[in-house]
């Protein structure tokens, strides 16, 4: 469902129900699931090692990603991505990730915020490393383990 497509001063909203096949990979008792399903920042666009001119991104951006996940029955959390808060000195660039669990549900929040259109060349090296961290964090999975008292899934 697409909302507010033609209302220029409102954000466009998209609602959908979906099934994602092979979203997690499994080996033995383990299940690995990368929670960033949409809008994953898996590539650092700042390829050049150095830069002389300011970095002009064209516009500011603020990505927020919230996932409420119900864990599969019979599994428990083995390891979660750590909470993170990253920034770059003296400029507006922020990455926050937090993960909370509550029994069989898990809530994950990502926020990637670039509050400036133009970043000075002097900050380029730090921006590049920052983006690396964001890209790496987007790829960090949730690790689940089958509970020892749970019966093995049928069919295997």
């Amino acid at each position, binding site marked *: 469902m697409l909302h507010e497509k033609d209302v220029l001063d409102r954000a466009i909203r998209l609602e959908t129900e979906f099934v994602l096949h092979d979203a997690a990979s499994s080996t033995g008792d383990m299940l690995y699931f990368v929670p960033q399903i949409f809008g994953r920042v898996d590539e650092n666009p700042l390829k050049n090692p150095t830069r002389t001119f300011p970095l002009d991104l064209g516009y500011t951006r603020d990505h927020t990603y919230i996932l409420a996940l119900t864990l599969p029955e019979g599994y428990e959390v083995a390891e979660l991505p*750590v909470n993170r808060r990253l920034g770059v000195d003296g400029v507006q660039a922020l990455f926050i990730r937090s993960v909370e669990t509550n029994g069989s549900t898990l809530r994950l929040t990502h926020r990637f915020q670039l509050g400036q259109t133009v970043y000075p060349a002097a900050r380029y090296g730090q921006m590049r490393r920052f983006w*690396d961290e964001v890209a790496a964090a987007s790829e960090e999975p949730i*690790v689940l383990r089958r509970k020892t008292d749970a019966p093995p899934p049928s069919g295997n």
Partner: protein
Amino acid sequence: MRPFVLVAVALLVPATAWGQRTNPALAVEAIPPLLRLSNPPAIVRAYEQTFDIDGPGRATETVRRVVTVFNLAGQDAAKDVVYYDGIHRLDEARAVLYDHAGKVVRERRGRDFVDTAISDGFSLYTDNRVRVVDVQDGRYPYTVEITYRIKHHGLIAWPTWIVQPEGLPTEQSRFQVSAPLGMPVRIRPQGNTPDPTVATVTGKRVYTWEAAMRPAFTPEPSGPTWLRQADLVDLAPEAFEIGGVRGSMATWEDFGRFYGQLGTGRRVLPDAAKADVAQTITGAENDREKVERLYRYMQARTRYVSVQLGLGGWQPFDAQYVHQRSYGDCKALVNYLQALLAEANIPSFPALVRAGAAASPIHTDFPKNTFNHVILAVPLARDTVWLEATSQTAPFNHLGSFTKDRDVLLVTPEGGRLARTPASRAADNLQRRTGTLTLTADGTLAGDLALAYTGNQRDRVRNALADASPQRRTEWLHDQFDGTSALLDQIVFPDFTAASDTLRLGMRAGLRRYASITRRRLFVPLAMERWGFVPDAMTTERTQPVVVATYPFEDRDSLAITLPEGYRVEAAAPPVALDTPFGSYRLEATVDGTALRITRRLVLSKTRLDASDFTSYRTFLERVAAADRTRLVLVRE
């Protein structure tokens, strides 16, 4: 169908019945609802093209196009970019804007249009121009009527009627060709085209094709080019005339003879060049070696400079001129090289080619000039050597994806003869990456990497780097790494002017955050490069063939990685092996203590699959993309 026929007749009346400022036939209401079902951004109401031939070198071409535009996405359809030059003269152009009811709003003609010289991007000088014939309105829907006329004073290519343009429904389309009774018209219909009606009117044979109510053609992912699929009528003359020279293309033999005759008397070398040839081939053991030496000689002393004017687009500079000035375009350099080889008593033939990695092949059963380049074929005892004369750095006997694996026309003393340039195998176009690297617990992968590129992949890398600044070369190399950023040093670039068919690059690479980390685990990607191209899934039944790759290629990676101490494998990656008739893939990772060995191989062939094979093609690429994302999971003990 009767009402449509009536509409069609109304549209054919030229809207120059200027007394009436409203043409109800052009009203949006008059559009048959059937054509609007797919909700297109624009509809071609009428397309009329005429080609009136007066002689081998004289003809008048007119176009009238009426398009209704419904929204911004359709706006480009209301514009014609007309190419012309000193031979093909644009002598009239007009655009009329109508509102939704068919009422005239505005008219433009002559100097109202943007008219500008254009460059093909590589010629030093041409007399090519374009006029942008358009008129637009911000109030949708609106209708535009475009008319223009071109007078041809020299003709080598007759026009093609494309029944409907790509992506737009067409209400009415018509093509009329008239030729003097003694001048045969050769016709190649393609796709769904009607038969022409033929009449004789005042000493001319008049062919008329008509089509109506054509739905939009929709390209499918990874399908053939539009021109290969379009419904069209292709025309070609038997006799033609350009720049005062007559020729025939009734057969390939004839057309080759025409091209050959333009070079007659233009391969006389000055004495200095003859002396150079004698010296260059001294001591050569056989003809092949002589050819290679003379090719190197030509590469070293000439540059590619293109000038295309009138017959000069066809006739080569003579060999003496090229020798003295050290430059020429493709045909001048081929002619010069041919003269050098002839001086060494080695016969060779220019080969006319339709160049381009994704160029439409020539139609071997329909002699027509669609060539845009020429190379040189040298038949030797064992095989034929093919030479690209415009490159100062191409290896000997090397054709790139620009010219290989296609039909060409050899220009021999006996006339034209079709031949085929060599095809390559995937293994000829190889990318090989090997590395010896160390992974640390913070996810950084560092070590030595060696990259090697052969054949078409060599060309790809060479084209990107050979003329680039040192900084740009380094940037290109950094761009080759997906994911997080790379720090490269001790970079060794090859000599890009070397004749070798393989380019080798070496470097020390540090890839930060190559592996994702959590508190206890390391997730190590198995592929350094993640395959990205997967065509969109079909939502309707696939109807078009599938085109796989513009050249066959093979990518091989072989990495030896030392893993950090204190971890054990929690999730190993089972080997992946995919085999299909059009491509194959292998990915294997083995761990022995802290030694991780990864091998990856992807092979894709250049081929064309039936529509029914689309799903297996897509599935293959999807599996390759998925396998490339596989990660080995290590957990701290």
